[in-house]
């Protein structure tokens, strides 16, 4: 009994000298060994596969860098200057913005609506639906992009056939980006369904019961009770979607190759194009760095918004739950 209490309190990090001594003796060599090897390997891979490459990319973005002819000439900020003067970059930026906003909105709204419908207990076959909606998410993106290229085919594609339309979705500047957005939402909304469902199930039942006893309408319950409690999940989905969609490029590569014109150029596609099609490694690195900064800023901003908006309600919610457990 004494041993147990001492080791347990040591785990909580209490600093009484006796517990520290006990802990030092109790800690087996195998634990240290396992810990050191693991942390060492993780740190080594971080340095070798991420930090050094980021350093090289940063240095490279100030060079005229072409691996084919071995050129690596210092050019100062020329790449960045050229970038801001490049109309394709601005087009790609606005496309990325439109793509990101539409895809995130579609994913979140559709995911939330469907999760709520499945949660509301009105629906039978919940598991069946959950599996159906999740199916596209686990499909390989390259294959899905091919499938939708065929779906959009103006001659035999299911979309024109089904709706009796005659639109060349992927080769018409007005529709090409939208077509890619629709495919992306179709593929990704299932993940939001699963996450929102998990969030909904985590809401203590008596909160919802209390609301219905008080006579709150379904809409008010959703807006004032459920939605605030889903906030952590909402932010998680928005942040991960944001990071994901800023990097999206396989859809574009398979479906339109950036065209027609520059209508489906995304920043990440432009990086691929500059690096591995045109072999302008320096220029591509400069774009990649801008993208990294944008990602970091947007993530940090969402994080801050989440924290400040969440601070009080979240704490209240957790005290509520712990009380529930003890009773």
């Amino acid at each position: 009994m004494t041993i147990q209490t001492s080791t347990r309190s040591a785990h909580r990090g209490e600093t009484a000298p006796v517990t520290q001594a006990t802990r030092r003796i109790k800690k087996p060599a195998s634990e240290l060994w396992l810990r050191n090897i693991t942390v060492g390997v993780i740190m080594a891979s971080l340095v070798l596969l991420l930090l050094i490459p980021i350093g090289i990319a940063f240095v490279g973005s100030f060079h005229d860098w072409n691996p084919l002819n071995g050129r690596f000439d210092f050019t100062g900020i020329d790449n960045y200057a050229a970038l801001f003067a490049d109309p394709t970059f601005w087009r790609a930026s606005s496309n990325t913005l439109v793509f990101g906003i539409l895809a995130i909105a579609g994913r979140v709204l559709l995911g939330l609506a469907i999760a709520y419908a499945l949660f509301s207990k009105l629906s039978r076959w919940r598991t069946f639906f959950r599996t159906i909606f999740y199916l596209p998410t686990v499909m390989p993106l390259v294959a899905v992009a091919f499938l939708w290229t065929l779906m959009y085919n103006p001659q035999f594609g299911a979309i024109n056939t089904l709706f009796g339309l005659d639109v060349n979705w992927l080769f018409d500047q007005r529709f090409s980006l939208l077509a890619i957005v629709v495919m992306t939402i179709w593929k990704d909304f299932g993940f939001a369904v699963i996450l929102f469902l998990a969030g909904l199930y985590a809401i203590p039942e008596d909160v919802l019961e209390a609301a219905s006893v008080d006579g709150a309408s379904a809409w008010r319950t959703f807006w004032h009770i459920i939605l605030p409690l889903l906030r952590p999940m909402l932010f998680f989905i928005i942040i991960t979607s944001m990071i994901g969609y800023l990097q999206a490029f396989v859809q574009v590569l398979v479906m339109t190759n950036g065209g027609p014109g520059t209508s489906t150029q995304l920043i990440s596609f432009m990086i691929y194009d500059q690096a591995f099609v045109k072999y302008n490694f320096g220029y591509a690195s400069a774009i990649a760095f801008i993208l990294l900064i944008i990602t970091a800023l947007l993530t940090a901003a969402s994080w801050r918004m989440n924290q400040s908006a969440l601070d009080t309600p979240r704490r209240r919610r957790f005290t509520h739950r712990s009380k529930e457990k003890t009773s």
Partner: protein
Amino acid sequence: MKVRVFALNAGLLLVGGIVVLPFFWMILSAFKSNSEILSFDQSFLPREWTLENFVSIQTKLDFFRLFFNSVLLSVTITALSVYTSLVGGFVFAKYTFRGRGALFAVILSTMMITWAVVIIPRYTIFRSIGLTDSYASIIIPAVISAFGIFMMRQSMDSIPDEILEAARIDGASEWFIFHRIVAPLSVNAISALSIFQFLWVWEDYLWPYLMISSEEKQVLAVGLTTFRGQYGTDYGGLFAATTLAIVPVLVVYILFQRRFIAGAASAALKG
């Protein structure tokens, strides 16, 4: 009330129908002949069922070689990275050491580093050390997964320390505790991560495209794109190849699905 239930189920059924329609259309179209696919008179079901498309992809592409390569790589990387994630998650969840919080924060923040920043230097590094055209070049960058470590730590956080302490007092080694207690309790997270990892390797396009140059070592995702380039009008073959490219992921999903949703959700809930 009855009307609402009906409307709700009808709505869900409609969305569900829209979601699965592309799959059915693809599978059925794979059994149509090319002339039927391109004809003006479209029908959902093939008028004449044919296996010609499935035969043609093998003769034109050595499809099953690429398919086998992708399976081999996906299984290997999934097994390795799930195991390293388990160990990493265990160390971060259950051991206390100096700098743990800071290192974990660094691991978390690496998840927002875009592929675009690191892929150019990685490409030059791997080329200069002569690792191109080998499976090692595909496996090495994927073995340690920040997302995997994060997910496993989240899941192991809920395992009470008392269980571990009790085992230690009974004389269990750390290795025993890890393999016999912590790993089996993380089976939901293992299922979820396995599906994710398998899918990520299976769908990864750019890195194998850059690294693998010989045709017999190439993976399916890259093969699909070159297939289209070379046989631009063989839509039947494309339908068949895409259908087959989806099968292994579907199998993995069905195998792990029962525990998958709980595992996927737990990572986010506490995140």
